[in-house]
């Protein structure tokens, strides 16, 4: 009997209404520890390339990991993995909260959902008993109503529910999935995949325990974390002000994404800050399973918009996307936009990015009031931003076009609009300036998901102004020198590769990067200690880092099989153009430097320069030789 995990994977075929439990064995879970590494295994084995992401042949996998559910800060997360309707490549999007531990308590590591239900359904997992239930009563409802009705129907307030809202049903390409109405698997359209399968929600109740190898060590470390996290500046900051604490710091540094990446400085940024939120609209901080940090926010407002606290409050990314990126300086409007996104099941990053795109199209006459239904869609118009969130979720008017994402919208609107579409591989770019942070920009370029900001720990955590702790805690990864935040010199290509493998490992184990080194409280040593105490393995940072590299390699293989080429590893032109104002005015990425970095990075990763595919030798090194035939190499 393994420790930390049950070894059971639930497979649900919605077409055949068939439910099975698979047990792939201990060796499998050592090779594919969880999250998207486990998910990518099944997608690579079972999906034919070229299938419609919104058709019955796509599969959607909800995956915790071998260590999820241990009662320590950061062990509460899970990944949703599928073929993305936004990019056509692999999707991996993660959420904390309470759902994943419950899945583990019910005795499962992951759920593979395939096929397409004939009519709307939801899945009910009650320990060993799993049922496909009629979702007639909740179809067409928002996430809040869905949660309430399911809990009433099943007669238990404590059931944990992951669901999508109307945006998922309407197949908005960046519709998301939320648990507890505020913990989002935000990115890449997993709500739409659920919608396409007529799957509204997955409700879970578990009564089991995590059978840990060394419960004492885990308990002691959890206690130590609770006693010490306030001494870690980064954990203290988010505990006090939420991730929105970043707004002022990024703005003063000239790198707050503003006006669709035209600039990095927003005059009225302070109105959007975590400090301001705390003073004016905060109800409380709230957290995830077993975490004392409580970095999530709960806000309540009455005027001019009524915001219901049950949907939480805006994170930094949301404030960036619906706020500064659209030049909206009204925190109440941003909070309303956030509430609507959480109700409808919309990714706040893609939503805000799409609205900013539409604003720039409006500014330049690509679209006009006839297209917007009379809305003056100018940068800074808070009310227009809120109205557009609603229209996107319902696919009404201009919202129908924006629900396709900026890449497809720009293709329809023509060449001029393409200049304003801030995406990579079809995914809207997140709220960090890829010029001010060179590796983050490079991540937008070569990262497998697209405009994803969680590819590496950010450049500014290692530059001359970075705290000593951050630099010290990165040393076990062989990152021993400080870097310049902007640009991609040789040192940074190496650093990018190591840090990408590191974050990828964190994702494979479904861990929260806000609990761990280099920047946060738990060190690399603690990480290994905890993995071993939970599983009973004698693992090492080396083995875990290889798990991270395996995930990156598998993602690459998936995308190549779907027809992605090195040309898809690109950035919008704007990130090669100078920031137009603020402290970093004039800063731009050098196209040649980025292209060279890309070639060198491919070589370091063991990928073919011409095709971008992992080489045979790399697949063998990664224990992925079964992919050799798959990739025809």
């Amino acid at each position, binding site marked *: 009997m393994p420790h930390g995990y049950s070894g059971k994977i639930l497979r649900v075929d919605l077409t055949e209404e068939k439910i099975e439990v698979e047990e792939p064995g201990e060796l499998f879970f050592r090779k594919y520890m969880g999250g998207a590494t486990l998910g990518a295994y099944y997608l690579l084995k079972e999906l034919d390339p070229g299938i419609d992401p919104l058709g019955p042949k796509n599969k959607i996998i909800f995956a915790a990991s071998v260590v999820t559910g241990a009662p320590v800060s950061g062990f509460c997360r899970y990944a949703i993995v599928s073929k993305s309707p936004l990019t056509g490549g692999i999707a991996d999007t993660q959420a904390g909260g309470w759902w994943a531990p419950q899945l583990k308590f019910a005795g499962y590591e992951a759920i593979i959902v395939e096929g397409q239900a004939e009519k709307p359904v939801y899945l009910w997992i009650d320990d060993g008993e799993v049922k496909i239930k009629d979702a007639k009563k909740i179809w067409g409802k928002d996430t809040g109503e869905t949660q309430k009705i399911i809990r009433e129907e099943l007669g238990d307030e404590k059931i944990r529910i992951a669901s999508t809202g109307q945006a998922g049903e309407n197949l908005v390409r960046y519709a998301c999935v939320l648990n507890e109405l505020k913990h989002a698997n935000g990115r890449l359209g997993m709500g739409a995949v659920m919608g396409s399968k007529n799957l509204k929600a997955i409700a879970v109740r578990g009564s089991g325990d995590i059978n840990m190898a060394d419960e004492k060590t885990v308990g002691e470390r959890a206690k130590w974390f609770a006693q010490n996290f306030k001494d870690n*500046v980064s954990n203290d*900051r988010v505990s*006090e002000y939420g991730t929105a*604490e970043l707004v002022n*710091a990024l703005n003063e540094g000239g790198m707050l994404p503003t006006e669709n990446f035209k600039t990095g400085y927003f005059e009225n940024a302070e109105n959007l800050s975590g400090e301001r939120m705390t003073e004016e609209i905060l109800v409380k901080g709230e957290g995830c399973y077993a975490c004392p940090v409580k970095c999530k926010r709960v806000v309540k407002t009455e005027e001019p918009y009524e915001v219901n606290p049950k949907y939480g409050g805006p994170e930094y990314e949301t404030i960036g996307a619906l706020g500064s990126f659209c030049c909206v300086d009204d925190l109440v409007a941003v909070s309303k936009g956030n509430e609507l996104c959480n109700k409808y099941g919309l990714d706040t990053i893609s939503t805000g990015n799409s609205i900013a795109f539409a604003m720039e199209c409006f500014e330049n006459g690509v679209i006009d009031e006839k297209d917007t239904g009379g809305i003056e869609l100018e940068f800074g118009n808070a009310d227009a931003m809120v109205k557009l969130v609603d229209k996107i979720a319902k696919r009404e008017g201009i919202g129908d076009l924006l629900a396709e994402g900026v890449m497809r919208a720009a293709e329809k609107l023509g060449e001029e609009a393409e200049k304003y579409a801030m995406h990579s591989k079809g995914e809207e770019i997140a709220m960090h300036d890829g010029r001010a942070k060179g590796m983050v920009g490079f991540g937008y370029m070569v990262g497998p998901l697209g405009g994803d*900001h969680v590819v590496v*720990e*950010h450049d500014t955590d290692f530059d001359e102004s*970075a*705290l000593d702790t951050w630099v010290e805690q990165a040393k076990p990864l062989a990152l021993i020198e400080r870097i310049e935040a902007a640009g991609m010199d040789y040192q940074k290509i190496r650093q990018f590769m190591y840090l990408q493998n590191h974050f990828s490992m964190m994702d494979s184990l479904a861990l929260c990067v806000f609990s761990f080194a280099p920047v946060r409280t738990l060190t690399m040593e603690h990480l290994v200690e905890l993995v071993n105490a939970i599983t009973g393995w004698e693992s090492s940072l080396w083995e875990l880092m290889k798990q991270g590299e395996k995930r990156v390699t598998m993602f690459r293989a998936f995308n190549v099989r779907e027809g992605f080429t090195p040309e898809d590893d690109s950035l919008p032109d704007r990130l090669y153009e100078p920031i137009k104002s603020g402290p970093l005015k004039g800063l731009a990425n050098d196209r040649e430097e980025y292209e060279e970095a890309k070639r060198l990075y491919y070589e370091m990763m063991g990928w073919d320069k011409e095709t971008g595919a992992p080489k045979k030798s790399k697949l063998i090194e990664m224990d992925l030789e079964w992919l050799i035939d798959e990739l025809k190499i």
Partner: protein
Amino acid sequence: MTGEGMIKVTVKMYSLLQREAGDSEIEVCMKEGIRLEKLLEKLCDKYGRKFKNILYNNEGRLNMLCLINGKKAELEETLKNGDRVVLMFPAGGG
């Protein structure tokens, strides 16, 4: 009003410093020719031990970034009348 030989600077404090100070922005009058380091000492005297523990790490190194008029400043820098001093954590990731 600043008298002869005196300067007035604006100090903007973010995040945990704001929490400890209970202020986000203050004006400080000091003698002409004073260095940034001296201003920080003055603030630590005013706001107390917890404030100081946020500003400096255990080894006495500055934990925060100081900007003068938007530019990163060194502790030895001399302040001028009308300067805007920002004290903030390095941005980090989000």
